[in-house]
């Protein structure tokens, strides 16, 4: 049945309202400081480490993101991969059930807008807020790197760092969409937050270890190659794995493959030589698409459930 009017009527109004809510909320303030402090700590460690090892690396600047100060294992990237989901979940877990519980949902939906605009506006505002924080953080890191290393990044390094930024935003989108999905399913924000956080811990910490075990337990083949590949495919169901692989390919130009490397592929290869940007991008492309597709799928799932949900409290 055809509905009259645009589904996105009022979208801009919702986005502006949600943005102003996010940017003025105490929650956001806390999360921002958390990000900045953790990032500075990691960056400081990286810079110390880079200064100590003055190797002739053509991609020294990218090492800012991926180097940790011994003996601590925390790099800037590993901080981000933990904190970005946390922030995204923190912004999304009460997106819809919060409106239910404040009893504002039916009042807002009785205005001349469709539900589509409300949900889409909330998602976009969340993603926009995350992007603003991440871009600010990214600029901070680049600026500090310039100041403290005294070394300008090359064009390719900047391009790689920028792609890294975009991928991080997509990664944040997955968790935001997941958090919003649970905020639609569960009436209680606490339940939604716990379930999302639980799923995050599971996918990030447990799943990568569990995937090979599942494969070994159930695989009919004892061919080692099949086992490794199957375990890898399975572990890629986790957005954290995908993000880690993309980062590896983009920020570490010597990465030649994200799967097992066959001897035939190594013939004629100069080990340790960096790949051109285009090649690195091609290596990571399936993972990048996976992240974007994941957030779209999760959002659509939430959208469908929200459309069918009763508005009455």
């Amino acid at each position, binding site marked *: 049945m055809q509905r*009259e009017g645009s589904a996105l009527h009022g979208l801009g109004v919702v986005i502006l309202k949600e943005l102003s809510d996010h940017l003025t909320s105490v929650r956001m303030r806390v999360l921002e400081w958390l990000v900045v402090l953790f990032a500075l700590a990691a960056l400081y460690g990286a810079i110390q480490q880079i200064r100590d090892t003055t190797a002739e690396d053509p991609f020294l600047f990218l090492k800012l993101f991926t180097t940790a100060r011994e003996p601590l294992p925390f790099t800037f990237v590993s901080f981000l991969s933990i904190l970005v989901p946390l922030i995204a979940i923190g912004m999304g877990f009460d997106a819809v059930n919060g409106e239910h519980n404040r009893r504002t949902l039916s009042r807002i939906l009785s205005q001349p807008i469709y539900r589509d605009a409300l949900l889409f506006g909330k998602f976009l505002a969340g993603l926009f807020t995350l992007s603003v924080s991440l871009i600010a953080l990214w600029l901070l890191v680049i600026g500090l790197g310039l100041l403290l290393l005294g070394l300008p990044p090359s064009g390719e390094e900047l391009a790689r760092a920028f792609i890294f930024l975009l991928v991080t935003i997509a990664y944040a989108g997955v968790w935001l969409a997941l958090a919003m999905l649970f905020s639609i399913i569960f009436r209680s924000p606490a339940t939604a937050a716990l379930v999302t956080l639980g799923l995050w811990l599971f996918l990030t910490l447990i799943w990568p270890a569990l995937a090979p075990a599942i494969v070994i337990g159930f695989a009919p083949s004892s061919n080692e190659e099949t086992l490794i590949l199957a375990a890898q495919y399975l572990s890629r169901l986790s957005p954290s794995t995908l993000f880690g692989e993309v980062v590896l390919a983009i920020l570490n130009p010597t990465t030649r493959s994200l799967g097992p490397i066959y001897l035939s592929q190594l013939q004629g290869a100069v080990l340790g030589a960096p790949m051109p940007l285009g090649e690195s991008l091609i290596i990571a492309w399936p993972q990048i698409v996976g992240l974007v597709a994941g957030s779209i799928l999760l959002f659509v799932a939430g959208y469908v459930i929200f459309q069918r949900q009763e508005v009455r409290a």
Partner: protein
Amino acid sequence: MSADNVIEVQGLTKRYDEATVVNGISFSVTRGEIFGLLGPNGAGKTTTILMLLGLSDISGGQARVLGFDPEREPLAVKRRVGYLPDQVGFYDNLSASDNMRYTARLMGLDREEREKKIAESLDHVGLHDVADRPVDTFSRGMRQRLGLAEILMKDAQIAILDEPTSGLDPQATAELLQIIRNLKTRNVTVLLSSHLLDRVQSICDRVALFNLGNIALLGSVAELGRQVLGIGYHVDLEAEGEGLAEKLKTVPGVRAVEAAGSNHLRIYAERDVRADAAATVIAAGGRLLRLSVETPSLDLIYNRYFENAAGGRHAA
């Protein structure tokens, strides 16, 4: 059906899996009328309202609001209809006027019109002085009034109010009912739901009594009284005199006269027979002490109806 009907509902039905919450109800509301959907909780009032607003799917039958189909043209309906949900909520951290600004933007009012209308409507409901206070400092009654201000700002042709007076103290209720009456003077049609029968009896032109997803009774309170109790008016009469009851029975419109105490008679009548009753008492040489009329209470009608319905079922 007259062309002046702003809401027309034919066989409206809502089913969830097995349960039928609203079962083929039909009614219509004319412009400028205050129409009450009354009945116990869970009788299907809120579901009916949500279907009229296009916020809930319609399982069967059809509804027309101002000539629009709420399922196909929900935006057209929602542009013209104001809705005050049961226990309306606002964004507590925002001020009253900021809350109004958000909905005004959603309505698509431009800035100048917005500010003017917000000030006007807050003024009208008596919240002008607290316009810039955050809503979490508001009492329940103030929130309800803020909700009504939103409907005023919208210039709605129909105001749909779900349980507007539940949980309010008597004074707040009186203030709210007064604002609702004012809506009528602005030629706004009001559809209100309540489970408090006597509270809203005073302001409703017509009511529909809901029970288990059906409309049990429909009409003005006096009409319902006639339908269910067989009488429209109770006249209480105190008078000293001989054989007054017999004489009063001959007055046109009087159905029954019963003695309710010494010198106290209760007259059941189809119309307001006070003047005739007084004349009869005087003509009979009696001394009239007191004369008062009351329309039967909805509570009485409601209870009697369901007693009858239950009795009927037992008989069958």
